[in-house]
């Protein structure tokens, strides 16, 4: 089955990004396809490569990045939300791309299920 995932909150402040990440891992493990993960609202902060958590903490930006590059998951950061919050190409972590809200709608259309994680 094809999943679209919407992440509305940044790393650390809310569990949303963690939950979405765990959900994606579990879905992949079960052989499902992740059509796209779309980062909206503060979710765009998941793509800030300057993020440097304490060494004994999970590093969500790196975890998502690795999913994007190693598992070829399409990680899309909303351009409008990202501009407002200062997430630009200069600081964009590997594996993410910046695009429009249309990519969220498309994920809703093309996926069998859209699952939303937020605050």
């Amino acid at each position, binding site marked *: 089955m094809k999943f679209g995932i919407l992440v509305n909150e940044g790393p650390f402040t809310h569990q949303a990004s963690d939950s979405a990440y765990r959900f994606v891992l579990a879905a992949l493990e079960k052989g499902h396809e992740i059509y796209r993960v779309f980062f909206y609202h503060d979710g765009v902060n998941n793509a800030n490569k300057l993020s440097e958590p304490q060494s004994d903490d999970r590093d969500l930006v790196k975890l998502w990045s690795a999913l994007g590059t190693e598992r070829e998951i399409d990680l899309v950061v909303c351009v409008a939300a990202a501009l407002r919050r200062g997430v630009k190409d200069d600081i964009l972590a590997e594996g993410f791309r910046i695009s429009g809200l249309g990519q969220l709608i498309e994920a809703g259309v093309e996926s069998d299920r859209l699952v939303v994680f*937020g605050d």
Partner: protein
Amino acid sequence: MLHIVNKSPFERNGLKSCLRLAKPGSAILLIEDAAVAAVAGSAPAKDIAARMGDFSFYVLGPDIDARGLGDKELVDGIKVVDYGGFVDLTVEQDTCQSWL
């Protein structure tokens, strides 16, 4: 329909609104801070127990354990799932709605 509730009903109105708007027959999954509602005896737990005939209730085990509630008695009839079980629920149900 799978309804996903992620906020503690002691703090916010998400579960209350979900219980009002979910169509009987739906599944309701408690994740993140909402997991605390699954522990038997509290007011939100009673709200859940009262609707056990209308909905299938689930709670995400990892979130219960994280909050130290793994040893507590849960509301009778609520099923504990892991992330894989969460995925299965979204597959079994035709749509999902998050009550943020």
